[in-house]
């Protein structure tokens, strides 16, 4: 995987540093209700997950100084999610991640009405 595939790879397929903090069930359930083909539903889920992933990363990096951002991105590139979870806990960012997720979850569900 190259740098950006690792940074932005589909979080539903891989365990991430914030998997334990958020649940994709509501969005997934909303998409499943639609009368669409399996491929169409899968694509919409991927779009939603990408938006969530960018939003969570933006939230985390916003709270880090430049040098800490570099360290964080390096670990993300290395897929070291255990270390990333420790950073999140150490910086007390779990609540912020959950808040950011709730905000974008609402926006995505509105997009699906």
């Amino acid at each position: 995987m190259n740098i950006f595939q690792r940074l932005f790879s589909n979080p539903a397929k891989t365990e991430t540093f914030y998997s334990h903090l958020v649940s994709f069930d509501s969005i997934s359930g909303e998409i499943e209700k639609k009368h669409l083909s399996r491929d169409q539903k899968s694509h919409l889920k991927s779009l939603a997950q990408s938006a969530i992933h960018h939003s969570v990363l933006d939230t985390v990096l916003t709270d880090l100084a430049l040098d800490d951002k570099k360290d964080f991105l390096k670990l993300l590139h290395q897929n070291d999610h255990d270390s990333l979870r420790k950073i999140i806990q150490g910086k007390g960012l779990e609540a912020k991640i959950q808040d950011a997720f709730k905000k974008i979850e609402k926006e995505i569900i509105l997009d699906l009405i």
Partner: protein
Amino acid sequence: MAKYEKYNIYKSRLDKRVKNTQDAFWANHAPALCWLTEKLPAKQIAAGSLGSLLLLSSPGLSPVNLTKSLTIGQKLPSKKAVGILLREDLSFEVPDQVRVLTPEEEARITKTLSKYYGFTVTSEIDGRRLNRSYGIIGAEQHLFRFPGDQLYKHAQNAFEWTSFGKYGIAPGLGAWGYFSSSEKKFSGLDLLREKYYIAVQTFLAPGFIKDVSGFRDFFKYRKMLVVNPKTGQAVVTDIGDAGPAEFTGKHLGGSPEVMFYLGLTGGPAKGPVLYFFIDDPTDAVPLGPITP
């Protein structure tokens, strides 16, 4: 409504959602992301599993969107691309007319610059500020750095002599006198201070007349970020002199090196720049040209 119509509506909305989060992510963290691409092995981006999620570039797309888009075969953004991003952001925030910025404009611009450069850029420190932060910079001459200094000693190599020697040396001393009391004591820091000095209108600072010595101490070698908003070129400078006079129509002056790295040595050797203080209590930000 047909199934494919509903799908297209949902897809269009989520595409826009992804783009917005992507744009915010890149805008907020471009310096760190570009560091990552330069420090780790550079690779062409393959769309892979992200291909369908990413904004596809289209003809006529601005460099800003291109650098934020990840498409098949597209190279990762470079420092040059980040410079383009900065220039693009500034083009929305900096007025076309060279005038005194409003407090809101200063707040937006300093926030952008702080974000791109990773240090605090501000229009005011300890309640002290200059009369303006957007103005026309003109070329200054070299300054005498120690007793017995001569112009040829300012050049450390042939390039510096041919590029910067022609501007000559000012007949008088700068506002703070010599940079060093003797050639023997002349340090690397003194060299950099003269090399990247700017002259600003200290005498027009709000409150200056009531506290001349206080302002003098505040301004002496105070670090300032000077940015050419048209090109994105920037230099970390220090206040090495006072001036220019108001009748010149210019608002600050730059040493030959500062003007060179701002891209303002051609033609009339002047142009509009932004100039803000760098809040650097630990002296961590080095003097000289800087890229985001």
